[in-house]
């Protein structure tokens, strides 16, 4: 029961009662933490690795032992600059580090080094597309503003042992470099939030600055949700945490919007609090351990001078290249972003934008498609149908990526060539596809010969079969002669059955029509 710009109308369940309920405008903002892909941590030389023995990837600095100092990792700076450039941000040539203080067992220093005053990148934008009405036929492009991107440290991991009333702390993750991407509250529902995050994920993976796998905690999303009536000021917002996948993000945001609307319509108020998403129950619950509004007592990090970045103009001469990060140099080496890849696909192959979307969205599918197109004479517009409906549906059913497909791009190209040359019909091709999927190592040609699926090329043989069908079906023949042309399809079907799919339907139709007009 809230108004969503992209669906273009008030999604109230009861249109008749719209006088009673004023529309609600939900406002959704996101804070995304992406773990930087690097060998070592942001301020220390310990390794970054998922799932290692507890506390084995921890240096003295990470454990916050006295007498240790932070030393900035160059790779993390480059990753942040790449991401900032990809999101159309202004890169701050001088950025500063600060300390954010709060107490928690997995933050041994008692503070986190972050960039609160002057972050490394500000004022960018992210464009994303989503389908209207759940059909892939119509896509609309939206933009969300990026407030800033900052470098900060990750905290360790806490394992809560409620049985023994204790918390076990593993500091392997403490000190790993994070990029925090703060998005302005320009979104209005779970679907928009999910689409924006998916696009960001693709961008980060293309750049290589983060692998952004939510399941491994490399991409963490917190949503800020509030609702208000149009024309009135923004409502009180709540923060939703513990969202572990993009699907859950949609659910969590939509649930929270509904919860707030219900609360306000029942005369209650929305409390500014932090809530956790419970994926089993599909709802948000207040988080324990949050003591009102936190005062983080930000102060400048005294051990780190300002981070200075250069571009081609400001690059000093006679400088040690290892000590310098050149924004222009990084800009020149940015790979093609997903939006550029999609545009190129549409231009090169003449496919529809929504098709390019799926190709780029699914891991490895674009490369597969391009491989097949290279090896076959079939037009890309026809190939895409095979890729998106036949191949993709099979892959999804078995939870495989394109790289894991039992049918390689070679085999599929061979099959499509047989079809294109008129050696088999399209229904036969589908049969061959199913056989190939079993992955028994046979080529399409072998399967066709084995199952005798070749199209009957002999005109006389076809005419004989057609004649046989005509002789059998007097009733249908009468109907056609009387003017009911559609009945011919039934005869075509019968011929197809008689030939076990080995007749070219167009040719059959021609022969039948000729015979019936005699």
């Amino acid at each position, binding site marked *: 029961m809230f108004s969503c710009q992209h669906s273009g109308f008030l999604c109230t369940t009861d249109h008749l009662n719209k006088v009673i309920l004023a529309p609600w405008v939900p406002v959704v903002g996101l804070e995304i933490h992406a773990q930087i892909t690097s060998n070592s941590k942001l301020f220390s030389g310990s390794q970054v690795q998922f799932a290692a023995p507890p506390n084995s990837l921890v*240096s003295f600095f990470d454990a916050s032992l006295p007498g240790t100092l932070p030393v900035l990792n160059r790779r993390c700076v480059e990753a942040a600059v790449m991401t900032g450039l990809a999101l159309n941000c202004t890169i701050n040539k001088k950025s500063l580090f600060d300390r954010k203080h709060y107490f928690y067992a997995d933050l041994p220093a008692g503070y986190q080094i972050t960039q609160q005053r002057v972050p490394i990148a500000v004022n960018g934008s992210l464009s994303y597309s989503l389908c209207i009405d759940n059909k892939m036929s119509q896509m609309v492009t939206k933009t969300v503003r990026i407030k800033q991107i900052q470098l900060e440290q990750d905290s360790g991991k806490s394992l809560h042992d409620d049985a023994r009333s204790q918390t076990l702390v593993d500091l392997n993750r403490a000190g790993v470099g994070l990029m925090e991407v703060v998005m302005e509250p320009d979104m209005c529902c779970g679907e928009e939030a999910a689409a924006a995050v998916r696009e960001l994920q693709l961008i980060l993976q293309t750049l290589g600055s983060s692998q952004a796998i939510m399941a491994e905690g490399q991409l963490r999303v917190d949503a800020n949700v509030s609702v208000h009536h149009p024309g009135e000021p923004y409502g009180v917002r709540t923060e939703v945490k513990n969202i572990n996948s993009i699907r859950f993000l949609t659910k969590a945001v939509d649930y929270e919007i509904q919860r707030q609307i219900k609360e306000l319509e029942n005369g209650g108020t929305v409390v500014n609090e932090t809530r956790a998403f419970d994926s089993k129950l599909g709802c948000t619950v207040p988080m324990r351990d949050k003591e009102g509004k936190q005062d983080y007592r930000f102060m400048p990090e005294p051990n780190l001078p300002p981070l200075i970045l250069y571009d081609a103009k400001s690059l000093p001469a006679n400088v040690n290249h290892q000590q310098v990060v050149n924004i222009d140099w990084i800009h020149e080496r940015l790979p093609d972003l997903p939006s550029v890849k999609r545009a190129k696909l549409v231009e090169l192959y003449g496919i529809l934008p929504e098709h390019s979307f799926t190709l780029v969205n699914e891991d490895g599918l674009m490369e597969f498609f391009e491989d097949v197109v290279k090896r076959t004479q079939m037009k890309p517009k026809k190939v895409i149908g095979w890729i998106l409906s036949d191949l993709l549906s099979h892959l999804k059913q078995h939870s495989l990526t394109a790289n894991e497909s039992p049918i390689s791009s070679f085999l599929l190209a061979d099959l499509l060539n047989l079809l294109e040359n008129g050696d088999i019909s399209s229904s036969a091709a589908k049969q061959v596809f199913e056989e190939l999927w079993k992955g028994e190592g046979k080529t399409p040609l072998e399967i066709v010969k084995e199952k005798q699926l070749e199209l009957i090329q002999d005109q006389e043989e076809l005419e004989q079969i057609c004649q046989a069908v005509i002789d059998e079906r007097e009733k249908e023949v009468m109907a056609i002669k009387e003017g009911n042309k559609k009945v011919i399809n039934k005869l075509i079907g019968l011929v197809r059955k008689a030939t076990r799919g080995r007749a070219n339907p167009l040719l059959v139709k021609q022969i039948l029509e000729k015979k019936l007009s005699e």
Partner: protein
Amino acid sequence: MTPRNRFRWRVMRVLALCRWLRGGTVRALRLGAAAASSAPPSQVRQRLGPCRAVPCRAVPCHAIRGGNGLSSPVCALLQDSVTVEVLDHLERLALVDFRDAEGVERLREAVRFAERLREVNTEGIEPLDSVLEDRCLYLREDDVTEGNCTAELLKNAREKVEEYFVAPPGNIPLPELEERDTFLKGS
């Protein structure tokens, strides 16, 4: 940590708190006398105002002698700003213990000392927050050079479970003022 280092550490933290508190006082002064003492610490902006802070050595506050050179209304303001509420808030945030009147007086002295800086006209001057500002920030190559010292790190832990550190379940917030055993209750 040696007792001397612990003392220094404590003073550094108090100085950091002073800067934070000074930020609150500056804002209070800007808002005008009426709003002065009620400027809630939680509204303190993190920007530390247009004051060029002279880097302080870690000098214990009670060693500062001599007149403070401030006019009496400001002096009174200072006394007002370090209220029981502020001290309780500080204790909760930083888990320091002011312990007795001398501790609070030390804080007041520190604030008074820092306030002297307001006599300097810093119109249009960029704030200095680190003497390292002209230094080059060294960038390290992305190589793995540390880690793998689990046993050494766990040596200091009082309790451990299979190479994990053990901590209490979640944060235990400081009890409310009424329920605490602190001298602040008396003031």
